[in-house]
Every structure is written in structure tokens, then in C-alpha cells.
């Protein structure tokens, strides 16, 4: 017998897939804004090189970037709050949030396993420890993006918030770092989804996963 098991609840699938274009648009419009004062670099690595701006046609689009950013911020925030509220109310958070400090040790094992340095995997429920830590961290990062964004948006009205981030330019740096973090998350996430295979990907669309082949 085979079992079709509900893995991802309908609401969570919607929140996830709505977030995909919203996060993309927030980062894209953020880059349109960043172009006007592109000061960050990592050693010789400048964010971003000139070819990057011309390749994607990013130059001279500050007004457009701001209008898009301050339009989609509402949807991004509403979707994020709805997701968190729903995971808490439905009890789904129990699968998503690491329950003990041993999650960090388990996540390390998962990482070693995924890098083909270890054969076995620690026992897990719906998500492994590395996923739990990542999916929890990404929510904290989202909240950080909203708060640092508010501090840049209204440094006079919310001067106390800007102060928490080390001032206006501090908030801007945090906001940029978090955006870079989302991009890194995205890359790892896509690789992991590709490696996990079709059955796993499909479950994020239709909700069900096939389990327990041929008992």
C-alpha cells in the first residue's frame, strides 16, 4: 500500500508562493534604490560592479524603485504576519521551530550529510534540524528587514528605532546585509530543492507527499 500524506497545509503553500514574487520585488526595487548610493563592498568586491547595473538596466530608476518598494512593502508585511499568525494558531510551528539546543548539533550532522561527509541522518519529524533553524532564522530576518526598513524610512519619526540599529546609516547597512542574506538563502534553498527531487517539490504545490512504498 502507498500513502499520500499531507505535508504542507494549503494556507502555508499560499503564503510561501505569494512570498516568492514579493520578496523578489522587494529585493529588485531595493537594488533600484541602492544604485543611487552604492557604497558597500567586501574587500575588492564592490556591490555592485558597473556591468551588473547596465546588464539589468538598473541605472536612474530611483523614483521607480521607491514607489515599488513602498507599494509592495505592505503586501510583504501582511503576508509575513499572516504566515506567522497561521503557523502559531495551527500548531504547525512545532515542526518549524527548533525545540532544543541539540538542534544545532543535529543541523551540523545534516550539513555534513548533505556535503556527503557523513552517511547517517539524525532522526527528524517533518523538517530536519537544519531546516528548522533556517526556516526560523528566515522569519527573524524578515522581521529584521521590516524593522531596519522602517528605521530608514522614518528616521525622524522612529528615531528610537534607528538608534537601535546604530543610527540611520547603521540601519541601512543592516537592511542591505539582510537582503544579501535572503539571496544566499534563496541559492541554498533552490539547490536543496533540486537535490530533494520531484516528490518533495510537488508536495509544496499540491500539499501531498507519497510515503511508505510497498509495505
Amino acid at each position, binding site marked *: 500500500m*502507498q500513502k*499520500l500524506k499531507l505535508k504542507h497545509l494549503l494556507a502555508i503553500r499560499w503564503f510561501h508562493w505569494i512570498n516568492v514574487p514579493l520578496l523578489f520585488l522587494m529585493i529588485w526595487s531595493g537594488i533600484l534604490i541602492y544604485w*543611487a548610493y552604492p557604497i558597500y563592498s567586501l574587500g575588492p568586491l564592490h556591490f555592485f560592479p558597473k556591468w551588473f547595473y547596465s546588464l539589468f538596466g538598473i541605472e536612474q530608476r530611483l523614483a521607480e524603485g521607491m514607489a515599488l518598494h*513602498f507599494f509592495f512593502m505592505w503586501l510583504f508585511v501582511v503576508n509575513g504576519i499572516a504566515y506567522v499568525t497561521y503557523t502559531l494558531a495551527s500548531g504547525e510551528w512545532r515542526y518549524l521551530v527548533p525545540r532544543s539546543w541539540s538542534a544545532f548539533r543535529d543541523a551540523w550532522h545534516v550539513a555534513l550529510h548533505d556535503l556527503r561527509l557523513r552517511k547517517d541522518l539524525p532522526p527528524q519529524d517533518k523538517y530536519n534540524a537544519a531546516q528548522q533553524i533556517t526556516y526560523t532564522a528566515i522569519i527573524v530576518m524578515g522581521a529584521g528587514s521590516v524593522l531596519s526598513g522602517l528605521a530608514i524610512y522614518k528616521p*525622524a519619526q522612529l*528615531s528610537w528605532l534607528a538608534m537601535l540599529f546604530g543610527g540611520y546609516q547603521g540601519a541601512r547597512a543592516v537592511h542591505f546585509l539582510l537582503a544579501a542574506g535572503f539571496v544566499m538563502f534563496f541559492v541554498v534553498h533552490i539547490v536543496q530543492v533540486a537535490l530533494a527531487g520531484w516528490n518533495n517539490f510537488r508536495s509544496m504545490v499540491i*500539499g501531498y507527499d*507519497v510515503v511508505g512504498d510497498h509495505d
Partner: protein
Amino acid sequence: MTNRRREIVLSDNEAQHELARRTRRGFLMAGLAAVGGFGAYEWITKAQQVDNAPWPQRKVLDLNGRISHAYLSDSHLMPEYPKSKISPIKVNGDIGVSNDFDPGAWRLQVANGAEDATPLLTLSMADIAALPKIEMTTLFCCIEGWSVVQSWAGARFSDFTKKYFPPGQHLPQYVYMATPDEDYYVGLDMKSVLHPQTLLAYERNGQPLEREHGAPLRLIIPVKYGIKNIKRIGLIRYTDDRPDDYWAEEGYDWFAGL
């Protein structure tokens, strides 16, 4: 069988059938949602433009401005700094201040009413200097993203307004300011111009304002981006109609508040 069942146990054959059915339906829904999302994006970005922004985005910019305006209070202050934190400022924008100009012949026109209202007053620097002089060292934020600490001195716009709009007289909702040639102009809400940090400034870092920084008189309004801090003010007009604004017409937020 409901869609909400957490587990569906089936024979292999049935399972394949059920899985295929759910996959078809799931991806069809996903496709429809993607098309709907793309359509919404096209509408949001390609709708008719109002002042160089598609109107749905313009509406949201204005809504954001109304929320920020409703929340704004005189106790919301841009942080102030010791003078040791002052750093050099970039000269950004010479619209309305690039032509030949004799600061000695400068006069400030003050009007009340619609666009064609004749100025009620013509003031000189002595009139501004007669108001209490306020000095503050605060953050100047450009809409491009940079910010610098600068020290400014001048008269509070609220003191200026109190003098020419004695209590009891109807105070309009907005202020329009323009350079003498009206090449550059800004629209401001009354709450922001009456904010205690809003100055009609004539000194920068302890020196008379330089020409490229807006001599002889400019607006310093730290609760707004630099684009609203108009240089070389030639006209101040109080009005109940939301005034035009140079950069708002180029697709930027009209409120532009910080």
C-alpha cells in the same frame, strides 16, 4: 474524501490515480495563480501615470504620506549631534540657483492663496534676522541614501508663520516655496513646516550660507528628504490646495517625510 485529510491510504493503483489527479489540479491552480499575479503586476506597473508614477503606486505613495502625516508630531525629532560630528556635504542640485543673482537685491515674497495670489509682503534679510535665531546640528538626509551631519542657523518657520499669521487667523493646510525664477519649487504640509526643527536658514556650519548651498535664505526641514530643503527661497505662498512639487512631478513621493 475531503481535501483536508492528512493521510490517504490507498492501493498502489489508486494511489497513482489519486496522485495524478491532485498533481493536475495543484499545478493548474498554481498556473492560474501565476497568471493572476503577473496580470496584477502588469496593472500595478503599467497603469496610467500620474506625475510619472503609475496611478496605483501614486495612490499608495499618497496613502503612505497621509499615514506618516497623521502620526507626525513636534516631538518626533531628527537626532541632534555635537558639532564635532559635522562632515562635508555634497552640492546636489543647482536647479533654480544656477543663474546670475545678486544676493544684495534679494527679496522674499510672501503670498496667501491660490497660485496667482499677489504677494502680500516683500521682506528683506533684516525681517528674517529679526526673528529668534535658532542653531541646530542635525542629520541631513538625501533621497539618494546618503546623510551628513550639518549645523544650520536661522529662524524657525513656526516663528515666521506666527508673525505673519497671528493666532485666530485661518492657517492654510500647505506651503509652497519657489526659487526667484520658479525653476525649483516644493510643496509642504503645514504640520511639517511648523515642526520645531524647520528653519529658514541663513547660516551653515557657523558661516553665512554659500551660494551653492542656497544663499541668502534656504529651507532646512530635517523631517523631509533633501529635495524638500529648497535653496534660495524667493517666494513663500500659504495655500489650501496641495501645491506642485518639482520632484513629485518626476515620480517621487509628494510627502517625502522622514
